[in-house]
């Protein structure tokens, strides 16, 4: 499985945004160009050692290349460990397929909960009526290994995941976790892997269900800060859907410094990398920014960000809410 990366696109690139815009490394245009060249030649570069693995360069590149996937491949080729080895090995073991998934026809719309079994009870109410919510290590998207220079693990496991889902005759798969959606909508095409079903992003799913129940939607009149997850960088095209969704339920996505393209990572991965001080710093900047923005709630798309930042956000007086929970509130449901 080869990454579809075209170095000639970079040669014509005037801005080298993939590096110039990076929030964790600082390059002027000239140094960015030189590091980009090294990467394209397959040479070592400080980029490979200092990358925070925030995925953002995938979004910054407007020319359709895959600068982040390239970094991950090079890190692995060169034996560079973004995180301590035991942490990487632990992650690889922890989510390995168990081989106990039996293909079956899903009774309702299949909703993949990724590997967050603790959220299972939360996918209830009108929004999730008629769905079959499932999770399994055998169906895990595995994209998390992008943070650990282990594209090889994704390459090894993902064809099996797709096969198993195809064996269930899945035609449309609702991805609760943004990262699962990114696997099918970004990573797989970037590596030339065919996906025989249509991934549906949670935002799209929620919009459709809310529209079906529109008469019961109560505008929440809430000002909320949005914690934009790293995986959104892989499929930024669905970003307008979130704005549409929030408008539908009367939630204002407060403008703030660290949203949209300038979003900051939740910090969990940086902590696993051993970069605690950087994580402390970005958590502080991010939370202070949320408070300054006047938001009374913080909404999460990614369950992992929610688990990482939920308590911190609450300690700052903002209510942490998963986007699905927010929509349930708009339907007058109790959480």
């Amino acid at each position, binding site marked *: 499985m080869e990454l579809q990366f075209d170095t000639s696109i970079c040669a014509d690139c005037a801005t080298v945004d993939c590096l110039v815009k990076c929030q964790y490394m600082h390059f002027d245009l000239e140094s960015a160009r030189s590091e980009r060249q090294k990467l394209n030649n397959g040479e070592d570069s400080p980029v490979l050692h200092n990358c925070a693995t925030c995925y953002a360069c995938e979004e910054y590149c407007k020319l359709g290349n895959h600068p982040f996937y390239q970094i991950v491949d090079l890190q692995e080729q060169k034996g560079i460990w973004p995180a301590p080895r035991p942490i990487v090995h632990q992650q690889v*073991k922890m989510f390995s397929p168990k081989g106990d998934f039996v293909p079956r026809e899903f009774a309702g719309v299949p909703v993949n909960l990724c590997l967050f079994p603790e959220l299972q009870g939360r996918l209830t109410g009108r929004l999730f009526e008629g769905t079959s919510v499932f999770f399994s290590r055998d169906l895990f998207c595995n994209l998390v290994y992008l943070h650990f220079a282990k594209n090889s693990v994704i390459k090894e496991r993902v064809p099996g995941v797709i096969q198993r889902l195809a064996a269930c005759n899945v035609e449309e798969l609702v991805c609760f976790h943004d990262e699962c959606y990114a696997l099918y909508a970004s990573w797989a095409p970037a590596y030339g892997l065919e996906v025989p079903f249509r991934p549906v992003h949670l935002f799209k799913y929620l919009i459709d269900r809310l529209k079906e129940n529109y008469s019961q939607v109560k505008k929440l009149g809430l000002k909320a800060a949005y914690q934009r997850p790293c995986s959104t960088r892989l499929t930024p095209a669905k970003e307008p859907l979130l704005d549409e969704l929030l408008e539908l339920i009367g939630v204002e996505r407060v403008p703030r410094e660290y949203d949209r393209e300038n979003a900051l990572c939740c910090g969990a991965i940086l902590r696993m990398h051993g970069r605690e001080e950087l994580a402390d710093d970005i958590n502080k900047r991010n939370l202070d920014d949320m408070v300054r923005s006047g938001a009374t709630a913080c909404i999460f798309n990614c369950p992992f960000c929610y688990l990482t930042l939920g308590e911190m956000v609450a300690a700052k007086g903002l209510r942490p809410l998963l986007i699905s929970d927010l929509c349930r509130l708009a339907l007058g449901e109790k959480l």
Partner: protein
Amino acid sequence: MDNILQSLAAIVGEQYVSNRQEELYLYARDQGTMDPHPPDYVVLPGTVEEVREIVLLAGREGIPLVPMGGGLVLSGLTIPLRGGIVLDMKRMNKIIEVNPVSRYAVVEAGVAQGQLQSYLERHHPRLRHSIPDAPPMATVGGNVAIHGSGHLSQAYGFHSDMVNGLEVVLPSGEICHTGSCSASPYWFARSPLPDLTGLFLGWFGTTGIITKVALKLYPKKKMKDVLMFVTENPDYVPDVIYRVTETEMAEDVLVLSAPKPDWMAGFQITSVALTADSQLEMDFKRKMMRQALAGYIDDREGGFMFLAPNLKKNFLETPQRSVARYADVNKGGGFEYVGAIMPVEKFPQAYRSGVEIAGKCGTTYSFIVRIIGRAHCMMFAFAYPFNRADKEDVQRAQKALHETNAAVLDMGGIPWKAEVPAQRMIIEKMDPSARQLIGRVKAMLDPRGIMNPGNWEV
């Protein structure tokens, strides 16, 4: 009714004595691998006077007397190896006094760990005692009698080190006080007197019945957090422990390893509990801990695990219920471990030897290591859960335990709360003068050999 039963009933009342088969059946066994043996009677005294009368009766009649608290020791130490009377202390569960200024509690020996914990939470929220991870019905008396350890042991040593003094009924029937309370109304310390308390700690009830314990209490911090440092080379662990304890900021320090769940398999997970009274203090302690281990992180040899809140919650519990859950991983309620007290530098050897023994004996295992007193030593638990209903499984665990005891002694460690066969192995290794002294002390205190016979027989 037979005479002994009648005499016991006359002491404690009929409802607190039994020789009914179903009760003898239960008191004949524990959760470990030692063969069961029924007592002839079970009695539950309510006062020290009743204990005294029972001891006198047993002495007169030459009947073995086996004290029991929660009966959770796992290594058969409350199984009445030669029958006789099991003296179940659970009714002696009064919390007599808490001295909040000198920070100690005086409790009856049958007070359960969970009872003391909740009493302090309710009435003295700024105080706590060191809690073992045993089920909360384990008693204070039973735990100190075996040199237990718990959540404050990294800071302050074994639970027996936290005893200020005892009230004991000697096999002669005398009621004796040890520590400051022998010469003062206060139970503040064992010093500066000749230390008689040690005559009853670690003796498994062979020298007397503990009826009261004065236990040190400690300040209770408002916040708690836990960090989990992961390595995959057991050779690193002694140094990791050294660095962690050198900060003097860690509270409980454990090292965990097991083939299941997957996130533990092949790793050594050093869990470091931190407590603080403010966010500032907590952040500072976290930072110090990270700094202490930065070398490993920079070299990519070790790192801190991300703990999702639902997983972290388990590790923040006191006691940690997950230990008891794990204890029944094979189902069937069998669980026993060799808790080896040994120098921390022996970790790599102990780890490898445990993995090898489990492999050879075909058992599952888990290692739970508790650091005692700033790494002065560790309690390395080689735990082997088994299904009690499956004879072969029991035998596999028995074999693993036996081999582990031998390996531990070879390494220079000493099995803790050793079952009788392991006691024999220890005694064999012991300095002959020490062995003889144990014999002389026992003969002096218990000339008829009625106290928990079979244990510490030299």
